[in-house]
């Protein structure tokens, strides 16, 4: 595992599309210190790496396929009601090509 530095955390935040202040980064480094210690507790559990990862609470085979019935989709104007800048039924964003 990489050593946790402010730089690594800043990079992670950039990938998540937000910025962190220096104060937030300092707090995060401290928080990671606790998390890493807590995760070390997990590493000490005998047999932890010998089981399969569990992704859902219990095995529930989903073999369900709905009937292919035509339904009326949600109206476009309804969906666009929540967008802040709409022109001619489309969401307007800053120009990509100059």
């Amino acid at each position: 595992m990489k050593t946790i530095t402010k730089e690594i955390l800043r990079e992670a935040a950039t990938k998540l599309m937000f910025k962190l202040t220096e104060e937030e980064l300092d707090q995060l480094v401290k928080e990671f210190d606790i998390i890493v210690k807590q995760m070390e507790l997990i590493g000490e559990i005998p047999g932890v790496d010998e089981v399969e990862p569990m992704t859902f609470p219990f095995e529930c085979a989903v073999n369900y396929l709905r009937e292919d019935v035509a339904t009326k989709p949600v109206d476009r104007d309804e969906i666009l009601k929540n967008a802040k800048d709409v022109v001619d039924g489309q969401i307007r964003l800053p120009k990509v090509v100059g």
Partner: protein
Amino acid sequence: MKYLSKSITEIHNALLNNEVTPLELVKAAIELAKNDTSNAFEYICEKEALEKVNNLDPNLKDSLFYGVPVVIKDNFSTKDIPTCGSSNILNGYVPIFSSEVVLRLEKAGAIIIGKTTLDELAMGGRGTTGHKGITYNPWDKSHTHLIGGSSCGSAAAISAGIVPFAIGSDTGDSVRKPANNAGLVGLKPTWGRISRFGLFPFATSLDHVAYFTRNVVDSAIALNVLAGRDDKDASSSFKEVEDYTKGIDDSIKDKKIAVIKEIVNSVSDKDVIKAFNDSVEGLRKAGAIVEEVSMDIKLLKAIYPTYIIISCAEATSNNANLDGIKFGAREPGESFEEVMINTRTKGFSTLIKRRFVIGSYSLLRENADELFIRAQKCRRLIVNAFTEVLKEYDAIYCPAAPGVAPLISGSGESLSDEYLIADNYLAFANMSGMPSITLPIGFKGGLPFGANLTSKIFDESNLLNIAYNLEKVTGLKDLVAKEEK
């Protein structure tokens, strides 16, 4: 208005006997909500509720929820009613559809009078991180103790006597912990028992719809309305829905209940332990076989970090759609990337951003084996251990928390057994999907505290039967925090 402090059945009977009308109930609840001093509400649905109650279908009057005012945590979509998850990033968002639980409640005749505050996007356990600030505990007039979260506003609204029923969500203990702090019954049924359609996803493999009532029978009544398959939620179960009130008052003679020794030992408050031991004796007198069972303390200490890693990792992707472009508050920028970055930087609070970074970091290829994948493996060991106990027993019974609601000024973070186990073990029921219920067992310094029962998956009838008998043992039901005169 005395009725709003009553049980759902008592309100129903009062309506049938024409002692009160749905309109009077709704108006009174709205008035109380307007005068709420706990910061329980994101939005009071005055106009919408009055319109609904005036058009209430009289054919529904045999439904126990007919004309009953209820509140909904603000991370459930409500058509044409603002829903922001107590986050600035969703300020101004108005859903164009309603969540399944809202539809089912309305179909049963319930009237939604308000959307309640939460820890931002349900990511927090203290009821302090929503964009409207701290939500207070109605039992504590000095406003120094937490109500807990993330379903803080729902817990506050019902314990203040504004409504007899409140919807919440529970990803780690977000209904069952505030229930401890507010003297309420908090039920999280089996994963898949209630549709999650329309609930803002936080951690998909752990999220559950859950709710508050003031007694166990009301909890069963609500499950009858809410449980059942919904094609709009692929994870909702096809399993048959029972009448959960049937047999609720049966004897618990010979039912086997396990008390996990290490969880009880991690609680240091002697008053909590005394009340808990008294309740165990009461269950024995009622005929149950209550036995102490031992569990690997390392596994119990691993529940919280396992939960944090999995929930933060899942939250990172579940909230990637919050960019201000399609919906929600939008910040200006020179490019679409800048719009997203500015929106997310300003829209999320510092706690949420930190949680997303923890999740993202855990998922990085070079870290995943030691963080995310290891947490998922540990989850299996934790679930196996509790499942093993429930092969022999009908339920697991332990204190729900280390004590009464903690101080708002406390930090809550530590590596102690009390914090890692007593304060955070309830997440095992989210990892396993097991139905789990918290109910009050005592008071200390004027504040309530509770205990928790958890049973096998889809065994809600059995769980509610044991909980009902426990409620009879403690005599603590229909608790409402009264305003000081």
